[in-house]
């Protein structure tokens, strides 16, 4: 759903930190109801003379409020409580992720898909499994899970391994592209597809794409790192 809103930051929480990055949850007020948990949005960084915008994932807070999960460089100036942000999205996902969906990810990327739990999805983190990820998936599909209900938020190199393991499978994959306009115009986030030479904008119809459509080698090189 398309929206463009001024929102206000009511809290800044640190999720994780390493030498290069700080992952933050920004508690916000004023986000419209169209912004669903798990949705990717773009927001303008307040800095005056910078054409900077950042992507974030919408999260639902237990208290009913909303948060934006996002990543800042460790040297960046952090947003302040009380600051206003402009946030927008033009995303109408080609496939809904809700009850019955199984999302597969790794610990480092978990924060980007965790909010889908609020929409009823089950989330599986590789490092938390007792067995090898492929074995787990084989077991689940053997037990009747259909591939189109599986959503893989994994690095494109892992996805290439997945295809070698399950050549006929047709799950969805998370295309983690850099975004710029967030409108579908600039082609920052276009995914190379076998069946559409124009590519398709992750910010418009993403983030989930049917795996068999995607050129995974090109995705590997044009994707943002899965962290």
């Amino acid at each position: 759903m398309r929206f463009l809103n001024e929102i206000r930051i009511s809290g800044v929480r640190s999720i994780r930190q390493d030498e290069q990055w700080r992952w933050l949850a920004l508690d916000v007020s004023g986000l419209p109801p169209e912004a669903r948990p798990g949705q990717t949005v773009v927001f303008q960084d307040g800095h005056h003379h910078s054409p900077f915008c950042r992507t974030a994932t919408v999260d639902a807070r237990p208290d009913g409020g909303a948060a934006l999960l996002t990543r800042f460089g460790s040297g960046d100036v952090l947003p302040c409580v009380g600051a206003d942000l402009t946030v927008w999205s033009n995303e109408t996902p080609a496939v809904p992720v809700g009850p019955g969906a199984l999302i597969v990810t790794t610990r480092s990327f978990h924060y980007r898909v965790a909010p889908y739990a609020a929409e009823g999805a089950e989330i599986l983190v590789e490092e938390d499994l007792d067995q090898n990820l492929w074995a787990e998936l084989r077991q689940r599909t053997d037990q009747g899970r259909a591939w189109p209900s599986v959503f893989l938020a994994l690095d494109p190199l892992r996805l290439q391994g997945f295809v070698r393991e399950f050549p006929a499978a047709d799950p969805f994959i998370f295309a983690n592209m850099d975004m710029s306009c967030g409108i579908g115009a600039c082609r920052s986030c276009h995914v190379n597809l076998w069946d559409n030479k124009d590519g398709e904008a992750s910010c418009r119809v993403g983030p989930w794409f049917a795996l068999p459509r995607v050129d995974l080698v090109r995705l590997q090189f044009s994707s943002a790192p899965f962290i």
Partner: protein
Amino acid sequence: MDLSVTVPMGARNVTFRNPIMTAAGTFGNIIEYMDVIDITQLGAVVANSFLPWQGEPNRCRRFAHTEHGYLSAFGINNMTLDRFIAEILPHLPAEEVPIFVDIKAPTRAQLVQMIRACVASGRIAGVEVNGNFPYAGRDEPSYWDNPANNEDMFRALSAAADGKVVLWSKAATSAKMVIEDFVSASERGGADGTVLFNAIPGARIDIHRRAFVCGSTGFGGYSGSGVKPFALWRCVQAAQVATRPVIGAGGIVTAEDVVEYIMAGAHLVQIGAASMSRPDYFPRLIDDLRELLERLGIASLDEIRGCARVETAPV
């Protein structure tokens, strides 16, 4: 207050509602913004670059932010001009806002053919012929680094434009030609104006991954706020020799920046990188510009075009 700008097209004049334009490659094929903002409030809109063949999303990371700007390496990523004319142009409000296209091609014959297609469409107001082709300065056609050939080429292109579409030359900032020679050569060949600048080569390295952050050869086009001083001076240099309009670009963010470019001698301006900082960038900029001119007591842009003076002690 009068924000309008009048520029020549062949022997006639064209008037723009205001000096604010989008920049090639940063506003999609225009149609993407039609439900987002009222595009007819802009001076003019420019679609993404067209080549004679169908493109596809580039095979590397396509952009990166720098501290003060934007690196882009989108490559050849658009549909063909013919497809744009057939599929998209009919849906654009060409009667209410001038539609421009930016074209690139390796040969003069291809450029001529593309311009003819624009004229035939009956709905394209103008064409920018893009000097950044092929990319990276390799195999650059000689008409981009030799004034005589450039003039010659524009003679052929302006014959094709036939006074029916505005014909601008978009300077390749990397070209080996001195900017003043470039402007004059294109004008002598019949160009109605010169757009400058385009992005300049730039790079950033991720020291953790030991890799360039975007571009399939390590660099991208650097644009945005950090290039403004350089681009603004280019605009001054061009305006000093130009006998036809200069369309300024490079690092414009605010209404103050727009006024700087007009004072440097520009007729119109284009905004690329900054316009992606929020979807409603353009309507806000136009409001800001009106308010700023009001405060500065400027009634018309003709009053201030090229007015910036040098202050130095006599020798």
